[in-house]
Structure formats: C-alpha cells, structure tokens
C-alpha cells in the first residue's frame, strides 16, 4: 500500500539531489568519459562507413 503523506519536503529533496551529485561527482565524470568515448567513435565511424558505402 502506498503511503499518502501530507508533507513532501520538496526543498529538502532538491537540496539532497544537488548533494547527491556533489557526493558522486567522480562517478559522473567516469560516466561522461565512457559515453564521450562512445560518442566520439560513433561521430567518426558513422560518416566514414556511410561515405564508403555510398561510394561503393
């Protein structure tokens, strides 16, 4: 059963959300590095493959 509490402390939740990011900034950087590498590979590979296939 879901609880229907009267007071949802949104300000506290916002504050906690920013603190969560600050606390795990290392993981954020880790994710960004990995996904940037994926993005860079895609940005280079996709046009190359397309040009090759269009020419071929």
């Amino acid at each position, binding site marked *: 059963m879901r609880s229907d*509490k009267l007071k949802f402390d949104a300000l506290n939740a*916002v504050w906690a959300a920013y603190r969560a990011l600050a606390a795990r900034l290392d993981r954020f950087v880790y*994710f960004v590095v990995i*996904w940037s590498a994926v993005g860079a590979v895609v*940005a280079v590979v996709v046009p190359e493959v397309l040009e090759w296939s269009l020419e071929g």
Partner: protein
Amino acid sequence: MPLSTLLGGLAEFVVLVAASICMSIAWHRWIILGEPLNRVFPERTDILAAYTWRVLVFVLVPVAVSVAAIVWMMRNRVVEEDVSGTDAVVYIGTTLVVAALARSLLAFSAVAVGDKELTFRAAWRLTAGHWWRFFLGYLACDLPFTMTTLWLNELIAGPADESFARSALEYLATVVDVMGSLVCAAFLSFAYLHFTSGRPSAREPAGYFS
C-alpha cells in the same frame, strides 16, 4: 551538407540521449536501491526500454509544441536565425509540458527500479495535492543547468567553424545538460522514496542519504 555528415550528427545525438537515459537510470537505482554506480549500461534491457519509451512520450510532446511555436515565430518574424531565441522557445515548451505533467514525473523513478505498478496515471493519483512542489522542485533542479547551457549556446552562436574553442564549448554545454538531468533524476528518486515509503519492498536507499 553531405548526407553522411548529417547522419553522423544524428547518430551522435542518439548516443547523447542514450547516455542521458542510462546515467539517469543508474542514478535512480543508486538513490532508491542503494545500487553501486558502476553500470554504464543498465543490466535489465526491459527497464531501459520502458524508461526510453516514457522519455520519448515526455520529449515528443514538448518538441511538437516547440516546433509549432517556432514555425509561428518564424512566420511572424519574431525570431530569425536566432539560436538563443529558438532554444528559449524549446525550453518554454518543455517547461509547459513539465508543468502540465509534473505529478506524473514520479513514473520515471518507478520504472528505473522496475516498479511497474506506478504508471503515469498511478503517479498522478498518488501525488494529488503536490503539484506545485513537484513543479517548482523540478524547476529548481533543472533551471540552473538550462540557463548555463543557454548561455554557452549563446557564446558559440554564429557561423559554424571547426575551432577547438567552439567544440569545447559545445561539449561543455552537453555535459552541463546531462548534469542537470541527473539532478532532476535524483530529485524524483527522493520523491519516490517519500511517496512509497509505506510499501513493503526490498530496497535499501543509499546510506549517505537515508
């Protein structure tokens, strides 16, 4: 512009959306379930698919609203080739949709942790009377990052070139944008913990914030 370059740009955009979704899911699961933040790609593809579907629903509506607004503005010469003006219209469109659906936002946290009961409709019912808290809370999480992104886009507005500075600023704007989506995901996760605290579950919220 050659077709290959255009499709390359599209592929890059798809990677950006995928990155944003995967990181948000990891963030939700860390806060709600206490799962370590080491999964670049979610383990469960059903969760990824369900989350992506919800994001699409949530993104397509503001995109449609924004496109309609931009077309209207172009036809009435309110903005012409104005990047920041267009960005602002897209942001206003998104904000209007968030305002309209604020009480359903909890469905994103739910789907990230595999809670299939909490659909958009169920989330809407559960959060009755909390509209402004959700809307203003979401805005407080999103606005600083969006403003920074708009400012960065304003800096790089102008004729496209291949300079390093321009690429660096574009990259920085993207990172700031993703950062904002993670703060929003965290806010919704804390809201989810609040609104479902009475339910029996195996979750173990991240120790730091419990």
